[in-house]
C-alpha cells in the first residue's frame, strides 16, 4: 500500500482544492442576473429557432472519413522519420500500409461517400 | 481377425434403419423385413456356436476414445445371448406384422427405419461390455422409441411420448452421472481411467457403491419398470402402434432388468445387498398394484400394459434374490415374458384393428365367430398365467424359488401375489371372447355389433403368431437348453461380488 499512498494524498488534495476554489467563487462572487445575461447568445440577436436541430448525415460521414484518413496519415509520420533505420523492411511495410489504405479509399469512393448529393 | 459378428448384429439394423428411413413405403417393408431376418440369422449363428461356459464369447475390442474409457468392446454371454435372440425375433415379428397399414400417414420408410434403429439400439445394449458404450446404446434406444410413439401412436401420442422421454431421460442422465462417477472412483484402484466392465468388477470402493448404485438404479428402475417408476409405461404402451408396443414391451423393457443383472449386481455388491429388501418389497407391491390396476382397466391394451409391469415384478424379485436360482429364473422369465407379452399385444392389436375398439365392454362372444383367434389367445393367456407345460412356468417357478431361498417372506408374498394376479387375463379373455355380444342390445340395433365386422386370423397373422406360439410350447416342454447356457454366466459374471451361492445348478436339470 505504501507506494500508492502519495498518489492517494495527491488525489485528495486535488479534489479538496477544486472544491475550495469553486466554493470561494460561489460565495464571494457578486450575482446580479438579468434577462440578457441569461439568454443563450448574450452578444447577439435573439434566436429564431431552437439551436438543436438535425443536420444532414453527410457532415458526419465526411467528418468521420476525415478523421480516419487523418489519423492514418499521422501514423505515417514516425515511420518516415525512422525510414533510414528500418531499411527495406520498413519500406515494404509502408507500401503495404498505403496499399491497404488505398483499398479503403477506393471502397469509400465506390460507395459514393465523396459525392455530396 | 475373424468376422465381427456381434458388430454386424448391432450395425446391420442401425445402418439398415437409416437406409430404410429414406425408402418409399412400398419398398421399405420388404427391405426392413429382410434386414430383420439377416439380423436374426446372424444372432442365430452366434447361438449355434455358443459354448456352454461363463464369461464373454465372440468378444470384440477396438479403441474408440481410450482417454474417456470409451472402448468399443462387445461380447456375448449366456445372459445376453437369449435376450439378443429375443430382440431380433421380436423385431422381425414387429416388422412383419405391420405389413398392412402404417399408422398416421405416408411415412412408411421412416416407420420401419425407426423400428430397425430401435432394435439395433437394444442389441447394442445387450451386447456391449463397456459401461460407457452401454450408456451410448441406452440413449440410442431413446430417440427412435420417442419418435415411434410420438409420430405413429394413437390420439394421445404427444402426451405419451413426452412422458416417456422425461422419465427415461432423467433416469439415463442420472446413470450418466453414475458412469462418470464410476470411472472416477475406480481410477485409484484400477490405476487408470477405464469403464471396461470386467476390469471394474471388484474395484468399486464400498463407500461409493451406494450413490453409484442409486444413479444406475434410477435408469434401470424406470426402464424395467419398477413400481413406483412405471407410470410412463401404460401410456406409452397403449398409445404406441401395436408392433411398436411388441418391441417396447417384449425387448426394450428387458434392458432395465438386464442392466440390474449386468451392472448393479457385479459392480456394487454391497449396495445391492443392502437395497435388495427394499427393491423386493417394491417388486411385490408392483406385482399386486399393477394386477389390481389391470383388473379395472376398460381398455384391453392398457390392461396388457399393466399385466406386463406386473410380470416384470416377478423378474425383479428373482434378480434381487441374489442367488443362482433366482437369477436363472429371472433371465429365463425375461425371454418368456418377451415372447408371451409380444404375442398378447399382437393379438390385442389384431382384435382392436378388426373390431375398431379397445374397450372390453363393447366386445363379447368373439369366440363363436373367430375360432382361430380364440385358440391363439387362449394359449398366450395361459402362458402368461404360468401354466405348466408352457414357457412361463419354468422361469416364474425358478425366480420365485430363488426368492424363497433368499428370504422366505418375499418368496411367500411373491407367490401369493402372482396367483391372483392372473385373474385379469381371464377377465380379458372372458370379456372379449365369451358371453353375449353386448352392442346388439344397447342402442336398438342401429349400429352393427362390433363383433360382426370382425374377421378371423388370416395367413399373414398366423405367420406372425405361430412362431411365437411354437416357442411357447417348445420352451414349455424343453426349457433346459436355456438355463444350461445362462447358468455359467450367472455364476461367473453376475454373482462375483455376492456371497457364494449355496448350490449351483441343481434344480435346472429337473426341467430337462
Amino acid at each position, binding site marked *: *500500500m505504501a507506494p500508492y499512498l502519495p498518489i492517494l494524498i495527491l488525489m485528495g488534495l486535488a479534489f479538496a482544492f477544486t472544491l475550495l476554489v469553486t466554493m470561494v467563487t460561489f460565495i464571494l462572487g457578486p450575482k446580479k442576473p438579468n434577462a440578457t445575461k441569461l439568454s443563450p447568445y448574450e452578444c447577439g440577436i435573439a434566436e429564431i429557432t431552437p439551436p438543436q436541430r438535425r443536420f444532414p448525415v453527410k457532415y458526419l460521414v465526411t467528418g468521420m472519413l476525415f478523421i480516419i484518413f487523418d489519423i492514418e496519415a499521422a501514423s505515417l509520420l514516425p515511420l518516415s522519420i525512422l525510414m533510414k533505420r528500418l531499411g527495406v*523492411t520498413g519500406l515494404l511495410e509502408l507500401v503495404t500500409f498505403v496499399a*491497404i489504405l488505398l*483499398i479503403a479509399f*477506393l*471502397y469509400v469512393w*465506390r460507395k459514393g461517400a465523396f459525392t455530396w448529393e | 481377425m475373424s468376422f465381427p459378428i456381434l458388430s454386424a448384429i448391432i450395425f446391420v439394423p442401425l445402418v439398415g434403419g437409416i437406409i430404410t*428411413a*429414406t425408402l418409399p413405403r412400398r419398398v421399405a417393408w420388404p427391405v426392413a423385413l429382410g434386414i430383420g431376418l439377416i439380423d436374426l440369422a446372424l444372432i442365430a449363428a452366434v447361438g449355434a456356436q455358443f459354448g456352454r461356459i461363463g464369461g464373454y464369447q465372440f468378444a470384440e475390442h477396438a*479403441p*474408440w*476414445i*481410450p*482417454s*474417456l*474409457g*470409451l472402448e468399443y468392446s462387445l461380447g456375448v454371454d449366456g445372459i445376453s445371448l437369449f435376450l439378443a435372440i429375443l430382440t431380433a425375433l421380436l423385431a422381425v415379428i414387429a416388422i412383419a406384422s405391420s405389413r398392412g397399414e402404417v399408422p398416421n*400417414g405416408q*411415412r412408411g420408410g*421412416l416407420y420401419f427405419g425407426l423400428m430397425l434403429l430401435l432394435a439395433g439400439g437394444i442389441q447394442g445394449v445387450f451386447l456391449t461390455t463397456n459401461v*460407457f458404450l452401454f*450408456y*451410448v*446404446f*441406452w*440413449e*440410442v434406444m*431413446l*430417440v427412435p422409441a*420417442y*419418435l415411434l410413439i*410420438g*409420430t405413429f401412436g394413437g390420439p394421445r*401420442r*404427444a402426451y405419451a*411420448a*413426452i412422458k416417456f*422421454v422425461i422419465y427415461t*431421460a*432423467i433416469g439415463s*442422465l*442420472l446413470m*450418466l*452421472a453414475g458412469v*462418470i*462417477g464410476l*470411472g*472416477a472412483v475406480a*481410477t485409484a484402484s484400477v490405476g487408470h*481411467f477405464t469403464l471396461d466392465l470386467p476390469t471394474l468388477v471388484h474395484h468399486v470402493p464400498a463407500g461409493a457403491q451406494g450413490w453409484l448404485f442409486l444413479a444406475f438404479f434410477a435408469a434401470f428402475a424406470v426402464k424395467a419398470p419398477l413400481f413406483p417408476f412405471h407410470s410412463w409405461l401404460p401410456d406409452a404402451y397403449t398409445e404406441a402402434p401395436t408392433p411398436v408396443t411388441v418391441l417396447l414391451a417384449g425387448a426394450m423393457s428387458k434392458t432395465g432388468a438386464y442392466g440390474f443383472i449386468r451392472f448393479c449386481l457385479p459392480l456394487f455388491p454391497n449396495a445391492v445387498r443392502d437395497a435388495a429388501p427394499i427393491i423386493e418389497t417394491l417388486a411385490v407391491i408392483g406385482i399386486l398394484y399393477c394386477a389390481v390396476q389391470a383388473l379395472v382397466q376398460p381398455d384391453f391394451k392398457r390392461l396388457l400394459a399393466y399385466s406386463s409391469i406386473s410380470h416384470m415384478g416377478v423378474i425383479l424379485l428373482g434378480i434381487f434374490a441374489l442367488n443362482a436360482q433366482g437369477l436363472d429364473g429371472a433371465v429365463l422369465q425375461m425371454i418368456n415374458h418377451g415372447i408371451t407379452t409380444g404375442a398378447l399385444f399382437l393379438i390385442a392389436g389384431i382384435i382392436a384393428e378388426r373390431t375398431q375398439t379397445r374397450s372390453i365392454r363393447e366386445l363379447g362372444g368373439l369366440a363363436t365367430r373367430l375360432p382361430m383367434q380364440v385358440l391363439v389367445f387362449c394359449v398366450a393367456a395361459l402362458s402368461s398365467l404360468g401354466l405348466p407345460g408352457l414357457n412361463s412356468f419354468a422361469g416364474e417357478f425358478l425366480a420365485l424359488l430363488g426368492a424363497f431361498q433368499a428370504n422366505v417372506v418375499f418368496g411367500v408374498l411373491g407367490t401369493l401375489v402372482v396367483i391372483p394376479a392372473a385373474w385379469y387375463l381371464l377377465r380379458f379373455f372372458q370379456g372379449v371372447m365369451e358371453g353375449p355380444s353386448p352392442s346388439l342390445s344397447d342402442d336398438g340395433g342401429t349400429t352393427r355389433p362390433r363383433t360382426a365386422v370382425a374377421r378371423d386370423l388370416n395367413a399373414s397373422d398366423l405367420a406372425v403368431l405361430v412362431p411365437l406360439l411354437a416357442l411357447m410350447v417348445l420352451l414349455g416342454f424343453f426349457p433346459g437348453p436355456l438355463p444350461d447356457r445362462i447358468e455359467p454366466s450367472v455364476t461367473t459374471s453376475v454373482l462375483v461380488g455376492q456371497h457364494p451361492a449355496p448350490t449351483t445348478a441343481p434344480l435346472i436339470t429337473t426341467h430337462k
Partner: protein
Amino acid sequence: MLGQTDLWLLSPEIAMTGLALLVVVLDFFVKRKAIISIVSIAGLAVPAACATWIAVTDNRTITGFYGMLRVDNYALFFDFLFILIGAGTVLASYDYVRLYMKNAGEFYALMLFALVGAMLMASTGELITIYIALELTSFPLYVMAGMLRNSVPGDPGSASRSSEAGIKYVLLGAMSSAILLYGMALLYGTTGSTDLGEIARALTSIGKGPDSLVLLLAEVFIFAGFGFKISAVPFHMWAPDIYQGAPTPGTLFFSVASKTAGFAALIRVFVDGGLFSASSFYLWGLIGVAAVLSMTLGNVVAIAQTDIKRMMAYSSIAQAGYILVGFTALAFNPSSASASTNSAMLVFLAVYVISNIGAFAGIIALANATGGERVRDFDGLVRRSPALALGMSLCLLSLAGIPPFAGAISKIFIFITAWQGGGFLPFIVIIALLNSVISLVYYAGVVYRIFVAPPPREDRLRVSPALTAAMTLSVIGILAATVFFQPLLLAGKMGALDLFGFLTLASK
C-alpha cells in the same frame, strides 16, 4: 529486426487479410455476387494451407514479433476451427445474402476481417495484441449485426430490429472492451508487463496482501470482459436481442466465431498468464457460479422461447456454461494435470461449432423457403423436406448431448475431467447433468415439432445447393467427430499441452 520467420508465423493471418481485401476489391468490379461467395470460400484454402504448413514443420519456432505472436498447437487448433467457421458461414449465407442483402461483398469481407482478428486472438501471448485482435473481431460483428437494411419479406420489422441489434451490440461491446481493458491495466500494474510469460513469472513471486487483491480485481475484470464475448451469465443480456435482430447468417457467425474467439483468448490469458496459480478461492468460486448460472438460466429460459434464433441464443449461453464447467475445473486445479480438462474444452468448442453451423443452416434454409423463424415454423418439417429435417434433428440432438453423437461425447468428456478434479466439482457436474435434461425439453421439442406436429402446408421445400452443402458438411463433421473422436481429442490435447508447457517453462 523482423525476419522471415515472423512473417511465416503470421502467414495464415496475412493470407486471410489478403483474402478479405481481395473480396473488397472484387466487389467493386464484379456484378455477380455468386463469384464473390465462391472466391471467399475457395480463398479460405490459402490461410488453411499456410496453417497446415506451419503445423507440419517440425521443431519450429513458436514465438514471433518479439513474443507477441505465439503460434503453438493451441493457436493452430483454433486457426483451423476459424477457417472452418468461415467456410460454414459462407455456405450458409450464400442464398440469404443474395436474396435479402444489398451488400454481399461487404458481408463476406467483414466476416473475413473478423476471422483475422479471431485467429490473432488465439495466437498472441501479449495483452495489448489480444485487445487489438479482440477489437478487430468485434467491429465487423457490430456492422454485420446491423446490416439488414431492407426488411426480409414476410417480416416487416426485421430491418429495424437489425439496426437495433447493431447499436446494442456496439454499446455493450464497447462497455465490455472497457472492462477488459481495465482488467488488463490492473494486471499490468501488478506485474509490470503485458507479456503473458512475464506476467506468469512475476505472479509466482507475488505474495498475499494488497497486490493479491488488485490481482483478483484484474482477474475478475478480464473474466467479465471475455464473459461478454462468450455470452456467459451475468454478461449475456446482449445475446438474445442481437441474435434475434441480426441477419441470420450473421447470427450464425456470432454464435460460433465470437464465442470461440472469446474462449480461445480467455483460456490463453488465464493459463499462459499463470493467473490461476496465483488466484484465490474467490476466483474459481465466481467462475463456478458463472458456469452454473449460465447453464441454468440459458436452458430454462430457452424453453419459453418462440423465436428459434432467441432459443439458439439461450442455447448458446447454456453451452458456454458447459465449457465454463471445464474452466472452473481448470481454475480449481491449475496444474498441468488439467491439460485433459483443457483439451476437453477445445474439443467441445469444435463440436459445438460444427453442430451450430448445421443447426443454423437448417434455420436459414427454412427461413429462405418459408420466411418463418419461429419455433412453430418447424412443424412437420419431415413431410416438407425429409433431408433437411434429418440433418437439423441430428445437429440439435448433438447440441442436446444425446449419445452417440459427438456433442454428447465431448460434453461427457468435460464432465468426466471436471469430476476428477475433486472438491466441489462433482456437484457442479451433477448440476450440469440436470441441465442436460432441461435442455432436452427445447432441443427435443424442436425435433418433436419436426417429426410429429402436423405441417402447416403440404408442400415440398426447396433447399438450395449451398445450404445443402453446409448442412451436409455439418452432419459429416458430427459423424466424423463421433467416430474419430480420439484423433480430435489428440489435436485438442496437443494444443492444451502447449499452453501448459509454456506455463511450466515460464515459471522456471
